[in-house]
C-alpha cells in the first residue's frame, strides 16, 4: 500500500517535471498542447477517497500552473476532473470486482475499458482547460480544433506511459 502510494507520488513528480521541462514547450501546429499530467488521477486506485482526488487535482494543477505561468487555469480544470473521475471510473471499472482494491491499468481493467476511461478523462480535461484558456466561444472552430488535437496528443502520450509503466513497476518489484 505504502509502496503504491510512494510510486503514485513519484509518478506525480515525474509528470510535473516532464510538463515543466518538456511538454510546456510543445505546441504542435499551434493547436496541440500535451497535458499528460492528468494521467496521475487516472491511476488512482479504486479505494481513494473523493477528497484526495479533488485536493490532488487542485495541488497538481497549481504546481503545473506555477511552472507554465497560467495561475488557476490547470488547477480549476484538474480539480473539476478530480470531481468526475470517480464517477467515470465506476462507469468503466469491471462490475464483478467485489471488495478488491482495483489499480486502474490495462491489465486490471482490460485494455478497452481502461483506454475508454482514460480517453474520456483526457477529453473532458482538454475541453475544460481550453474553455478556460480561451474564455470565449467567439472562435469556436479554433477552440474545437485545439481540444481535438490536444486530446489526441495527450491520449497518445498516456498510451505510451501505460506501455512503459508496467514494465517499470515489474522491474522494481
Amino acid at each position: 500500500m505504502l509502496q503504491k502510494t510512494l510510486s503514485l507520488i513519484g509518478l506525480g513528480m515525474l509528470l510535473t517535471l516532464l510538463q515543466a521541462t518538456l511538454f510546456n514547450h510543445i505546441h504542435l501546429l499551434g493547436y496541440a498542447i500535451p497535458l499528460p499530467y492528468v494521467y496521475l488521477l487516472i491511476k488512482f486506485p479504486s479505494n481513494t477517497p473523493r477528497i484526495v482526488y479533488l485536493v490532488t487535482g487542485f495541488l497538481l494543477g497549481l504546481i503545473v500552473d506555477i511552472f507554465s505561468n497560467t495561475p488557476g487555469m490547470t488547477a480549476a480544470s484538474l480539480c473539476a476532473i478530480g470531481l468526475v473521475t470517480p464517477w467515470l471510473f465506476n462507469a468503466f471499472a469491471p462490475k464483478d470486482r467485489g471488495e478488491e482494491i482495483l489499480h486502474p491499468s490495462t491489465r486490471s481493467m482490460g485494455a478497452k475499458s481502461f483506454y475508454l476511461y482514460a480517453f474520456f478523462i483526457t477529453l473532458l480535461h482538454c475541453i475544460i482547460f481550453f474553455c478556460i484558456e480561451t474564455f470565449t466561444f467567439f472562435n469556436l472552430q479554433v477552440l474545437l480544433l485545439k481540444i481535438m488535437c490536444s486530446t489526441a496528443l495527450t491520449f497518445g502520450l498516456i498510451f505510451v506511459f501505460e506501455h512503459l509503466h508496467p514494465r517499470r513497476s515489474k522491474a522494481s518489484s
Partner: protein
Amino acid sequence: MYHILEFLRKYYYILIFIVLEIISFWALFRFNNYQGSVWLTSANSTTAKINRLYYDIATYWHLGEVNRKLTSENLRLQQEAHALREALLDQKVEGTFLDSITRTSISGYQYIDAKVIVNSDGKKNNYIVIDKGANDGITRDMGVICGNGVVGIVCITGPRYSLVTPIINKHSNISCRIRGERHFGTLQWDGKDCRYVYLDEIPRYAKIKKGSIIETSGHSSVFPPGLYVGKVNSVNDSPDGQSFRLKVELGTDFLTTRDVNIVITPYKAEIDTLQLYANRAYTDEPS
C-alpha cells in the same frame, strides 16, 4: 438537523470542490490579464443589468402613488379647463364684474381621495363601496368622480365606508348638459350595457352631433359644473318624438375604476337648507 449533517457527510466533497474552484478562479482572474479583463467586463455589465432590474421594480412599486397623483392632477386640470372655458364664454357674452365675483366665490370645491373596495360589476343595480365614510367627512348625496369622469353619488355612509350609487344604476339620475350648448337633461341607464347611458329631454332644436361632450350641469349641489361624463355615441328620437334621446358613451370604465375622489361642495348645507325650505314652503301651501 440530523438530515443536514447526514447530507453534509455524504456530499462534503462537493463543498470542497466548490471552495477549490473558487480559489482557482480567483487566481485565474487575479493573475491572468486576459481572463481578468473578460471577467471584469462581464461582471460590470451584469451589475448594470441588476441595477436596471432593481430600478424597474422600484418604479413599478411606485406606480400606485403615481396613478393617484395623476388622478388628482387630472381633476384639477379639468376644473381649470372648465373655469377657463366659462371665462371665455363670459367674455364673449357679458363680462360683468359682479358675475365674475360670484363665480370666484363659488369655486374652490374640495376633493377627498378614496379607493374602491367593492364593485358589483355588470348587474342590474350596480353599487360601489369606497373606503371613506362619515369619519372622513363624507355625507349622503356627495358626488364621486374619477380621472375619467363622473362615477356616481354617495348613497349611504358608514363610519369608515360608504355606498355609492354609480351612473350605471337604474335609480341614478344625474343632471347633465352638452358642452357649449347648455341644454340639459337627466342621465339614465337602461340596465343593459355598462358602457352606455341615455340622456333624455334634449330639445329638438339643439345642435348635437356625434362626439359632442356631455358634462355635469351643476344644477344640483352634488357636482361642480363642467365635469366630463362621456361622449355622444348616437342621436335618437325619444319615444314620444318631442325631444332627442342621446346615447352617451361613458368616460369612466366602472369595471376597472380603483381610485376615486369625493367632491365636497362648499355651501352645500346652505343650498340644501334653501331647497328644503323651498320644498316645505311650496308644498305646504293649500292647493
